[in-house]
C-alpha cells in the first residue's frame, strides 16, 4: 500500500506516494523523473546512487523513501544555477574526469559534501571522501585532479567576490 511522503528535493517541496519497500533512489528516478542519480550495485558498494540528504552524502539505494520524510535531498540536477555549471561540474569537464559518466553524479555530490566541509582539501582528504565510489573507465587520477581543481576554482571565485 502506498504511503505519502513529503520532502524537499533540490529546494522544492515534493509530496509523493510510495510503497514502503521503495528506496529513495526509486522515488527520485521513477516517481520524480530525476534520472541523473544512477543505480549500480544496489548494496551501497559502488556509490553511483549517492545524493545529499540534509547536506550529507548517502547511498540512496539503502535508504527507504519513507525514511526521508521532512528531509532535504540534493541530486545532481540540483547543482548549479539554471544553464550554468557548478565549479565541480566545470572542473570534471576541464580535467577530463568523465568517460561513460555513470559514476559522475555520485562522485560530484560526494565531492561537493567534502568541499562544503573542507574548502582546501588535501589529496588524502579527496581520496577518503571518494572511497565509496567505483569508476571502471577513468582510473581515478583525473577525478582526484578534478576535485582539487574545483577547490581552486571555488577559492578564486571567493577572492573575486570578496575583492
Amino acid at each position, binding site marked *: 500500500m502506498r504511503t505519502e511522503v513529503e520532502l524537499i528535493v533540490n529546494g522544492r517541496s515534493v509530496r509523493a506516494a510510495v510503497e*514502503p519497500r521503495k528506496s529513495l533512489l526509486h522515488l527520485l528516478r521513477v516517481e520524480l523523473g530525476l534520472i541523473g542519480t544512477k543505480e549500480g550495485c544496489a548494496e551501497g558498494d559502488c556509490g553511483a546512487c549517492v545524493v545529499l540528504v540534509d547536506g550529507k552524502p*548517502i547511498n540512496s539505494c539503502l*535508504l527507504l523513501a519513507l*525514511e526521508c520524510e521532512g528531509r532535504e535531498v540534493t541530486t545532481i540536477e540540483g547543482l548549479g544555477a539554471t544553464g550554468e555549471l557548478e565549479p565541480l561540474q566545470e572542473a570534471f569537464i576541464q580535467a577530463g574526469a568523465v568517460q561513460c559518466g555513470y559514476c559522475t553524479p555520485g562522485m560530484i555530490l*560526494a565531492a561537493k559534501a567534502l568541499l562544503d566541509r573542507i574548502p582546501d582539501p588535501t589529496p588524502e582528504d579527496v581520496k577518503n571522501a571518494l572511497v565509496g*565510489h567505483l569508476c571502471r573507465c577513468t582510473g581515478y587520477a583525473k577525478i582526484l585532479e578534478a576535485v582539487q581543481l574545483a577547490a581552486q576554482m571555488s577559492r578564486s571565485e571567493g577572492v573575486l567576490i570578496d575583492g
Partner: protein
Amino acid sequence: MHDFRYFAPDTIEEALAFLGDSNGGSRPLAGGTCLIPQMRNRHLGSPYRQKRAMRPECLVSLRRLEELRRVERSGDEWYLGAMTTLARLAERETEADIPVLSQVASGVASPEIRNLATLGGNICNASPAADLLAPLLALQARVHLVSEESERWLPVRGFFRAPHRTALGAGEILAGVGVSVDASASPWGVASYATHSHMGMTLVSATCILEETVPRSRARLVVTPASGRPIELLVDLSGRAERDRETVGDMLGSALAQQSGKVRGCHYAQENPQVPSWYVEHRAVLAAQEAVSTALDRHDQRGSARP
C-alpha cells in the same frame, strides 16, 4: 523486495508497544545498511545469503527517536545512544571522548555508509566481521536493552551469542551502550585486515587496551576473526617489555589453535572460499601484535615508563 508495512513512531514507548504486540513479525530499522540488502532477494546468489535473507512483516523505524541519539556522560560511563551514526562516532569532537571507537568507526566502509550506519545496528547485526566488536569488547562495554515491561544491562560479551545471534529478546531494542570513562582514556591500539584496503570485508580486527593496575600492567587484547568467535586475552606485561610481540604472538597462536574446530564451516568461509581460515588466523596474529605494539607506543608517548 517483498511487501511490508512501515511504522515510524515518535516516542520510544510507541515503538516498544508496537514491537511487543507484533509477535516477532516486526524488526526495528536503524541505518538499514545491512538490513535493506538482506531484504532484497535479487541478490541472493549464494546459499549463505539465502539463509540470511529477511522478510519482516513490518519495519519499525527508529529514526525519529531522539533519545536514541543521546551521547553524554553518565557517572563513570559514556552513554552512546544506539542511533548514533558511525560518522558521528568518528568525529573526535563528539561529546564522548572514546578515541579507540572514533578511530575504528572512521575506517568503516565509506563516508556515505557511515552517515547512515549506526552503533546499534552494527552491534545488533552481530556480524563476526563487525568493525566495532573488538573495541567494544576490549573496552568491556555494556549494552542497555529496553522493552515495554523492563530494562536491563548486559556486557557486550554476553550480548553476542553466535554469528548473527544476540541476546535481544522479543519486543526488546538496544537503546544505547555504556563505556567506562577510565577505559576510554587508557592507552590503546587497533589493527585490522580486510579483503581490500578500502570498502573490503574485515577479515580480522584486533584491539588492545592497556589496563594499568597496581602493581602490574596488563593488556586486554580482543581479536575478532571473521571466521570464528571473538578471542579475548589478558596479557601480563610485567617484565616482558622486550618480548611483547613474541609473547602476544605465542599466546594468540595457542588460543587460535584451540579454536580451530570452531573455525571450520564458519559463515564467512561458506561465502568466501577464497579466504581460508588459516589465512585469517595468520592475519589475526599479526593484527594482535600490531595492536599491542601501538598501545605500548601510546603509553610511552604519555611520558610513563614502559610497563
